[in-house]
């Protein structure tokens, strides 16, 4: 039975990256996408930890791909978002949008 819980910040980012990449969502492009968006290095191990948590919650699924020599003969594992995952993404987006909308206009502070 999949675990239920709220999405953490990093989990949400990983989920959105998987959605964005579509069929080519495996470890390397997911981490690359997160690095580009965040502007700093991302540990591939922590990406996989987040993917495992999402898989345990039933928000994503995975299938094994083909091994290649560049990967030392190891197969790729492709991830895809499930229906429950899509619902969770939309719900999170709705909540975050409402929260942002209710905030007063923030003035940028210069340190």
């Amino acid at each position, binding site marked *: 039975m999949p675990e239920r819980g709220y999405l953490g910040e990093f989990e949400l980012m990983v989920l959105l990256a998987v959605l964005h990449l579509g069929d080519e969502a495996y470890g*390397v492009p997911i981490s690359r996408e997160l690095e580009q968006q965040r502007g700093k290095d991302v540990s591939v191990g922590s990406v996989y930890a987040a993917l495992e948590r999402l898989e345990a919650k039933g928000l994503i699924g995975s299938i094994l791909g083909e091994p290649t020599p560049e*990967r030392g*003969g190891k197969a790729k594992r492709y991830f895809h978002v499930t229906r429950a995952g899509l619902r969770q993404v939309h719900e999170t987006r709705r909540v975050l949008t409402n929260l942002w909308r209710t905030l007063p206009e923030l003035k940028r502070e210069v340190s």
Partner: protein
Amino acid sequence: MKSAQPPRLATWILEHLTTGEHGLALSGDLCEQYHAGRSSAWYWRQVASACIVSWYRSFYLQRVMILFALLWSMLAPAWTILVHEFENRFTLLGHIWRMDWPWSTLASFGTWMLLNLVFVWAGMLVYLLPAIWHARRIDPRQVRRGILVPIAIFNVVYFGLFFLLNLLSFPGPSVDLRTSTPARAIFDMRRWAMAIRLPYLITLVCALWRPLPRLAIAKTFMGIPIGEVPPPNSTPVRSVDLEGMSGFLGFFVCAGLLNAAIVALLVCRLPATSGPSLLGTLTRAAVYVLLGASAGTLGAWFYWRRSASPFRLHAPLSFRLFALICAAGWVWVPAIILLSTQDSASAALLGGLLGCVIASGLRKSIPAEAQPANLAPPTSAIFSHAILEVPTELHGYVIAFCVYLAFYSYRNSSNLTAAALLATGAFLFLWNRTQSPAAITRQQLRRRAVWRLVRTALPAVLITAWALMLGVAHRNRIAALGAALANTASPDSIARPDSTLGGTGGYHSIILWPLPPKKQIIPPIPRPANYLGIDHSRPMVIRFDGNYWYFQPPDQRPGRLAHQAHGNPLLFDIHSNNRFPLFMEAHQRLIGPVRIDRCREIDLQIENKDNGPGSFSVSLLLGDSGYPGQPALALGQQPVISSQPGYFRFKLAPVTETLRFALPASPRIRKFDDITVMVIPEREHITASPKIAVDQFELLPR
């Protein structure tokens, strides 16, 4: 210049030491990124991060279980005390030791194991009971795991931690169980109590760990997932084949060695008689050699047949052949153990021989076709930095490290450690130097293995018998010396030793000097030039300001390697870290001689803060330094009352006691200026120096 392949050690760590479902995919991703241009430092950082993250997640998921194991293991010291009281109350140990060998040893070990396992199983039952009650069913796999895992690992963890503690601090923590209660022991945070808790904690965590961490190596062999069809056009990784096979072979060899060592430590004993017959010694040696080989075989077989072992399905050689080859090395283990307890350097040399025998035997039994003859360069990108992979021979550094550390251990008299290190270094050296046979049948391999076993077993029996005889001779010398010292015979009548003994680490002997005197504000009272002069009618008090000697037989005094320290003997825990007794003496040199005919009695005032088991007594010897060859005058032996059964009380502060020694009317010597106080402990106290200090001597005039 960057290597074409990612760091092998990092890859091994990633594939073997991380938990998690997608370990192989992660490994492949990092490999892909490395080939895309990432550096080795980046690769190492990613591997370290993956290990930390995966284990953190595993511990987090099992946090309730870990907390329970922590709390349950807090009860371990209390359980140890209860077991001790149980054994004493029912004189269980007495019944066991009256049995014939080897049943006495097996029964003792079995009882100890059972009592410890009961504690672990009780903890597991308490933890699993709510889950069983809730689910209304028992998972047979969990029960089987819960029963078997503690049996398999408790021994290994317990003795491994014991070995580690002795390496870190000799001779390890000790405590008098008579003086503690179970309730108090639960909250005991001393080193002893924490050391006791660790093996139970680790065993409980391993037994209750659910599910098994998904280590990637259990899923693949030769680069192919076990049980799955190999993907098309896949290239098995050469390095995984060779390294995986070597690694597993090494693991099984070590498992057998450890098992053989444990059995040898428990079972191998010197003959009880002081003059055993040659036939009896040879028979005993043959039994020990057979036990060593059998224990090693059983230990390796246990892990060979486990479900996680890839050798169950795809072994480079059969277990029978493997056992025959390795038994030629395991037969040396009893001799190594016996010699190491006698602090003989031969133990280390035999360890090296063991490593050579096993390495050459295994290497010559794996045909060359199982390994690629030429190391073809790996495929690499067309513009890679290096066309050919630079070979890295890590084993060279490991061999050098083992040799250096072995000599260091030998220098510190840790012969067992030196043997293990030399065995490792010799194994690695010969493993990489020995050529595999080109074409050889299984029958030839088996014949060779049997012949090799026969050729090594016979010398092993002879050397084990020699070790036994050496041990008996040594024991006889110590017994003779102990009897001579107890009768306070002339030092000249005691045979001078040919060689001095060391311990298993620690110091050869110790000389303890008094603490430097504090700066005195008032001038000290000057000492008289001579004691008990003609007009002297009052007792003369001499404060003790000499030194204490701690040494082991057959030495009669601390050697030139003696460790010198300042301190109070009441504050020091000085133990023998081998099986030899520890002698303690206090020496006081007087400024001037005292005439025997002026003194009728010497009252010795001591402070006793000893809480160890066993009582002890004190003997006084008077000597004249003007006549070095003259035998000392012995004034007899007096028991220290506060250490005797019936008078013993746990001491938080030192207890002062006065022992009276009368001088004979017609003594052998006329005067003395040297007083020696000899502490003579009983058998239970013979390896730990009593915590007593000499306060003063009071000379009573005639």
